[in-house]
C-alpha cells in the first residue's frame, strides 16, 4: 500500500472542521452562560440617586457587562476544557501530531471567541428588549444599533479579543495541568495568594498590574497589539510545553 503524503495545513483544516462538530457542546454552555448573565443583569449594574429640594433623580444603569465578563470566563473554561484528556486525545484517534492539534485548537478557540464576541454584544439587545417589555416602567435612555453602529462593531471586536486572550490563558493553564496535576493546586494558590498578599500590603501587585495593562488601555491599536502579543506568547508557551506530552489513557 503506497504511503499517503499529508501537509500540516491540510491536517489542521480537517481537524478544525472535525472540532467544530466534536466540541459543539461548548456552544451550548455559551448560550446557557449568556442567558444566565442576562438574567443577572436584569437587576441593573448600578444606580444613582441625586437631586435637590425641588427634584429627586434616580437613575438605574443597565449594560451587558456581566454578559461580556461571563463570556470571557466561558472562553477561559472552554480553553481549559479542550486541553483535558477527554478532548485532547480526540485528535490522536485520527491523523495528527502535537503541532497540528495545537494549531487546530487555537483556530477553534479563535472561532469560538469570535462567536462569543458577537453573541455577547448582541445579547445586550435581548437584555434591552426584556427590560423594555417586562421589567421597566420608567423611561429608558439608550442608543439603538442605527444610532451607533460603530460602537457595536467596536464592542464585538474588543470583546472578541478579550475572549481570545482568556482562551489563550486558559489553554496555557490547561496545558500546565496536563503536564502536572500539581498545577491544579499551584496556579489557584499563586493567584489567590497574590491577591491576598496585595490586599494585606495595601498595594497593588502583579495581578492588578496585568489587569490594568489590558483593561485601562484606551488606545485601540495599542490594545490590539497588547492582546495579539500576549495571546501569541501564551499559546506559544502552551505549544512548546505540550510538544512532548504523551497520550495517556
Amino acid at each position, binding site marked *: 500500500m503506497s504511503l499517503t503524503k499529508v501537509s500540516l495545513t491540510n491536517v489542521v483544516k480537517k481537524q478544525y472542521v472535525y472540532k467544530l462538530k466534536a466540541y459543539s457542546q461548548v456552544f451550548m454552555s455559551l448560550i446557557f452562560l449568556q442567558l444566565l448573565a442576562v438574567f443577572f443583569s436584569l437587576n441593573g449594574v448600578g444606580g444613582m440617586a441625586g437631586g435637590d429640594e425641588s427634584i429627586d433623580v434616580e*437613575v438605574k444603569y443597565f449594560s451587558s457587562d456581566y454578559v461580556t465578563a461571563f463570556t470571557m470566563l466561558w472562553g477561559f473554561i472552554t480553553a481549559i476544557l479542550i486541553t483535558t484528556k477527554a478532548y485532547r486525545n480526540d485528535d490522536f484517534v485520527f491523523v495528527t501530531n502535537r503541532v497540528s492539534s495545537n494549531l487546530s485548537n487555537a483556530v477553534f478557540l479563535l472561532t469560538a471567541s469570535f462567536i462569543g464576541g458577537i453573541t455577547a454584544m*448582541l445579547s445586550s439587545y435581548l437584555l434591552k428588549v426584556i427590560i423594555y417589555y417586562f421589567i421597566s416602567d420608567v423611561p429608558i435612555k439608550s442608543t439603538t444599533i442605527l444610532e451607533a453602529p460603530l*460602537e457595536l462593531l467596536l464592542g464585538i471586536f474588543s470583546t472578541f479579543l478579550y475572549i481570545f486572550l482568556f482562551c489563550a490563558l486558559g489553554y496555557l493553564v490547561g496545558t500546565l495541568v496536563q503536564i502536572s496535576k500539581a498545577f491544579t493546586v499551584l496556579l489557584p494558590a499563586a493567584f489567590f495568594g497574590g491577591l491576598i498578599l496585595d490586599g494585606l500590603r495595601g498595594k497593588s501587585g502583579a495581578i492588578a498590574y496585568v489587569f490594568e495593562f489590558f483593561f485601562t488601555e484606551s488606545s485601540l491599536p495599542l490594545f490590539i497589539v497588547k492582546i495579539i502579543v500576549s495571546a501569541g506568547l501564551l499559546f506559544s508557551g502552551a505549544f512548546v510545553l505540550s510538544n512532548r506530552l504523551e497520550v495517556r489513557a
Partner: protein
Amino acid sequence: MMAIIPLLLTAIIIITLAILTARAVNRNVNRKGKYSYSRRVCWIFSGYVAVLLICVVLDTVHPGNIVDGWKKVDTKGLEKESIDLYDAALEGEIANIGSILRKEWSFDYHGQQLDVVVTQDEYLNASVIVERKHNNDDKIEAAFYQTRQSVNGMDITELAKPPHLEIAEDGLLLSNPKKNKIKYSEFTNVFSVKQFTGEDFFRHDSNFSGGQSILYLRIPKDLELIDKTGINLNYIEQE
C-alpha cells in the same frame, strides 16, 4: 483592589456552573436521536442568534418608553450659566437674561412691613434677591428665574417646578414646590466599549447639576422685609 473580590467570587460561581453545564451536556449527548448532537447544537444556536437578531430589530423599532423629549445639554456651559445669572441678578440686570424666567407673580400690599416666611421646609431652594423700586406703588412683583438643570447631560429643567408664593396676613409665605421625582434607566455601553470611548471604565458616572434658582423680588421703596426664618435676603445695592 477590594472591588476584585466579589468579582472573583462570581467568577468561581460561574466556573462551577460552566463545568456543571458541560457535564450535564455531556451526559445528554449520549442519547440516541434522529439528529446528531452537533446538528442539534447548530439548530439551537441558530435559534439563539435569531432571537438576538430579532431583539436588535425590536430595539430599533421600539416605540415607547424611551426617554424622549429630553434635550441634550452641554453640561460644561451650565456652571457658567448659573454664575452669570447670579451675578446679573445682583447687578439688577436679571431682566436682560429673561429667557430663563420661569414664573412671575404680582401681589398688592399696603403695609409698611412684611414678614418673609419659609413654610414647610427650613430653606428655600432658591436664592432670594430683592430689588427696591424707586417708588411706593404698593405692589410686590416676584419672578422666578432658573438656569437649566441636567442629569447625565439631559435637560430636566422643565421637570422642576417653581416655588410657591402667597401673601397672607402680614407675611409673604414662600414654600418649595412639591418635589418632583424623576426615575429613569439608562443603558450604558459595555466596559469593552467604554474603555475606548473615554467613558469611565466599569463605573457609571452620574452627574446631576441642579442649576441656579433665583427668586427675584421687586418691592416698594419703603417696604421693610423682615426675615423670619433666616433665609438670606440679598438686596441689590443702589446708588
